[in-house]
């Protein structure tokens, strides 16, 4: 079989191509909405804002957050980060349902991505630091 043969058995119909274009347009539309989303959360004197991708974009600390050491402060920042990400994740899923429909396969992809994000932040919270006094 030549390389050309590999493509000749699976040529999409015009209707399938139109459906793919519509899905691609919806994906671009959703991505633009997702990029504009933000989420904010506060935990014990720490306020964090994240963007649609879950990146920390703004931080505010109150004195009360700093009173019991570096590790406790770092844990509060990470906890607030996780909560802000949950806020924005809920918005992302709601907008994805609205854009793609309740049963769309895109929801599984987005859900898996959000779960990975959750795992990354959970891992950032876990573990003890042996390198005192920097530790968290």
């Amino acid at each position, binding site marked *: 079989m*030549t*390389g*050309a043969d*590999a493509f000749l058995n699976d040529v999409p119909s015009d209707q399938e191509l139109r459906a793919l274009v519509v899905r691609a347009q919806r994906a671009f539309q959703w991505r633009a909405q997702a*990029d504009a989303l933000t989420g*904010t959360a506060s935990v014990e*004197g720490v*306020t*964090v*804002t994240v*963007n649609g*991708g*879950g*990146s*920390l*974009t*703004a*931080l*505010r*600390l*109150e*004195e009360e*957050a*700093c009173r019991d*050491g*570096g*590790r*406790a*402060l*770092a844990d509060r*920042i*990470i906890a607030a*980060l996780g909560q802000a990400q949950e806020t924005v994740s809920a918005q992302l899923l709601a907008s994805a349902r609205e854009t793609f429909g309740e049963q769309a396969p895109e929801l599984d992809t987005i859900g898996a991505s959000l779960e990975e*994000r959750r795992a*990354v*932040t959970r*891992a*950032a919270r876990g573990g003890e*630091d042996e*390198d005192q*006094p*920097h*530790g*968290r």
Partner: protein
Amino acid sequence: MPSVPEDPEAVKAAYAAEVDEQVEQARDRAERATAWRREVEALLGHGTADGGGVRVSVRPDGLLTDLRISDASAARGARAVERAVLEALTAAQAQVRSAAHAASVQAWGERDNAVNALDAEVRASTPPPQPLVDPGSPDGGREGGTW
């Protein structure tokens, strides 16, 4: 002199060989893309501030993977440690952007569109962080600063 008609079978074989070569090139690029993606996904950027008292690590997608704050840094007060965390995060973001760019150049060469595409993606995922200012107060209720 009239030209000799080309053998249709030979023409067909030539086209098939050309397509095979293009498919092979596409396959090679796909394999390189997979290796490149794995390499970029494994990258981390690290940043420090306050003499190493604050340390931050981030991924190319902007997610924070580690944050360490020393007791001494925490004791400097909210304003100072807030500034140090943002400074360390900014440095970590710059490092991961640079590392992702280097990995792309190594995989594709300086002028490939993939390099620009990934640079833009990582830049969008690592926006410069800012202090969160209380809208009710011009300076967030605290002393002014350069942030």
